[in-house]
């Protein structure tokens, strides 16, 4: 059942590195992470790779497989042709630490910049009432497993290191959208701060983030575009913005 596969694994650190060829067994039903683990256990004991759940739920084993941002635990070996060479490299948009492990601390810094949820002070424990249909809009974004593949794929930072300072990236646009659509959140103007402080305007809607999302969150269509539209509304029609805000609060 086992077949031999050729893997090209990037090995190195922040100073230098190169692709190394290894031949390794792959069994029926295995994913790329299984094969990397086999390399680790039999040929390269110190090969660095992050992983946790191995079921696509934690978002740890993010890497680039044949140049595409993927979760190694959800990429089946059977998706490659017989004899096809498989190249695994660390996430390109972030500095490498070692081998397949990248320094993703950028994302945790950005998380600190997004204002937190604000609960209505008058609503005590168990008093909140929300419709399922209303919570579902934010729930879509709360499915995010923080694999940061969208951040890695996004051209605004992938190819332009200098943009990182002023651009939070798709992961945090859906965080802002989630709070903006949260039926109870009290903080106003979230979409405007997304535009003015977190670089929403730099996104040119190429949908690369949506394509790589392992949770199939419709990042562009359901979070970024609606926020962009509302920013435009606000910019050109303050009365309309005020009206929509008041109606929304009364209804909640």
């Amino acid at each position: 059942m086992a077949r031999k596969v050729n893997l090209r694994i990037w090995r190195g650190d922040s100073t230098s590195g190169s692709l190394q060829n290894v031949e390794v067994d792959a069994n029926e039903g295995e994913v790329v992470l299984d094969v990397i683990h086999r390399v680790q256990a039999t040929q390269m004991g110190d090969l660095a790779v992050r992983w946790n759940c191995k079921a696509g739920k934690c978002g740890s084993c993010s890497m680039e497989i044949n140049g595409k941002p993927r979760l190694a635990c959800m990429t089946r070996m059977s998706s490659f042709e017989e004899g096809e060479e498989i190249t695994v490299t660390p996430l390109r948009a972030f500095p490498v630490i070692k081998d397949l492990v990248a320094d993703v601390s950028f994302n945790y810094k950005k998380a600190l910049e997004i204002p937190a949820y604000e609960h209505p002070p008058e609503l005590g424990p168990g008093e909140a009432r929300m419709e399922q249909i209303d919570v579902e809009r934010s729930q879509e974004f709360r499915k995010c497993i923080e694999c940061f593949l969208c951040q890695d794929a996004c051209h605004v930072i992938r190819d332009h290191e200098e943009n990182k300072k002023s651009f939070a990236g798709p992961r945090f646009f859906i965080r802002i959208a989630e709070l903006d659509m949260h039926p109870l959140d009290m903080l106003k103007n979230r979409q405007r701060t997304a535009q003015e402080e977190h670089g929403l305007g730099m996104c040119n809607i190429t949908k690369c983030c949506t394509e790589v999302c392992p949770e199939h969150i419709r990042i562009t269509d359901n979070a970024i575009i609606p926020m962009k539209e509302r920013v435009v509304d606000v910019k050109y029609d303050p009365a309309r913005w005020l009206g929509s805000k008041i109606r929304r609060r009364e209804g909640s």
Partner: protein
Amino acid sequence: MTELERYTYDVLVIGAGGAGLRAAVEAREAGLRVAIICKSLFGKAHTVMAEGGAAASMGNVNGGDNWQVHFRDTMRGGKFLNHYRMAELHAKESPDRIYELEMWGALFDRTKEGKISQRNFGGHEYPRLAHVGDRTGLELIRTMQQKIVQLQQKDAREYGDAQANIRVFAELTITEIIKESGKIAGAYGYWREGGNEVLFEAPAVIIATGGVGKTFKITSNSWEGTGDGHALALKAGANLVDMEFLQFHPTGMVWPPSVRGILVTESVRGEGGVLTNTAGERFMFKYIPEVFKDKYADNEEEADRWYLDQDNNRRPPELLPRDEVARAINTEVKAGRGTEHGGVFLDVSQRIPAEIIKKRLPSMWHQFYELAGVDITKEAMEVGPTCHYVMGGVEVEPDTAAAVGVPGLYAAGEVAGGMHGSNRLGGNSLSDLLVFGRRAGMGAAAYVKSVTAVAVSDASVKAAAERIQTPFTNSGGENAYSLHQELQEITHNLVGIIRTGPELKDAIAKIVDIRARSKNVSVAGDRKFNPGFHLAFDLDNMLLVAESTAKSAIAREESRGGHTRDDFPGMNDKWRQVNHISSYNGSEVVVRQQALPAIPKELFDLFDIHELEKYMTPEEITKGGSN
């Protein structure tokens, strides 16, 4: 070697899963400076894998529910080996803990009236699990992660430094808990990224490291479940209670081999999924134990009616507590009625419309479709038991979560013992970690305010540093990966779901042998993000835990919950009064017996006396509670 990094905190929380984060929030809100240590990145803890929900008797779906019913279900599920006080606190406080999360921004699924919805689960009399589809654990982690970010934002505004009072140390392993003059003084460890060493000085340490699944071959646990906290506590002089009790979740994936063990949520059965063997028989009706006969339907018609009318029908036997279902599947497979991959069938496709399946069980659909090429809206899943949860753990004072015998040490969540007795009900772990995470934070805060911190001595630092260096100075020694595989084979074959005395004896000898060889583990490469180096320490922890489990298991000569002895089938009233206490004498794990705390009268009286007669001795029944 680089210079030692030193930090001083009031409270050090080891583990950033649900219990650790909840404890950290509580200690910080009590005004203390808190460090949170995680082995992985922040937000990746195993809690994210919890699918079904958090049990809390809010009574939103069935108004008949209350803490007393939840308490009864928990004790029953644990076969009355639970510490009554933990089960009581848990049942009373979990609704508040759920509401609190909602006030921190969590978005649970709703009822028609707009309240938090609750779903059915094995062993729970009423629909009780607050949930978010089948990714409830992720919602808990994310909510608490974001709560911590909120606290950091507040500190950034007040002190100009987000990490002034609460800091997350991600990808750091703790190798030692340090005591001075009999009290907790801190902990020692290393950054996984660079291998450089770190000393934390803190008068209180909260262990919240989760489980031990990686000691077993087939497990739903991630690489992190290596029993670190169990082992750290043992070495620090704390006790472990009832380590023989391991929960084998009845439904793990069995095919393909690379996903073997990955969890299939109990919600599949809660939503109407049925178990069948290869003969097409819905076999669970054959496995309803005597003690549960009045609660579970003995025919398909009644079982199916229950989904529509729960007041007038008994529950389907697929929803028996997990230990019962796991044993039943094991028996079916052994009798030759299992699939070619050693599982049985779990099917929702015949009973629930495709669009409802995708809505209620989205990540299950996803998991099977992407990893096994199975569309669960059209075909049955293949499932079998997988090592999922350890009921045993650090012996604690229920009200404060303080580890017995070690001033300044606390434990909460899966790493703590007592709460679940011999078997945990699904949904009770997420509520457990909220209730006792908070209590550990409170307990540690009160302790810190009452003592003066003691400094860590140079001798302790030197000893801890030497231990970290050892795998590099050993040369040509054992390979940590191979020893880990050997251990997993032993636990799987000899300390697994069905056990016997001679096999356990064999297991103990083999574990002791591997532990001797593990002293000579040597590691290739350097300290920089080196998994082989990391595994050397994890292995040491797993070996100690496995020894504790095997020694507790050989001592308990009965079958109860997550401990089944082929040579001692059935429960024994006498054994219900016994806890097994593991301690470490510096060279091996020693197991002794200790009397289980007796249930006080007011809790005793919550039960039907005839039910208690199934579990307790006539003397206990006559006494009618402890006061």
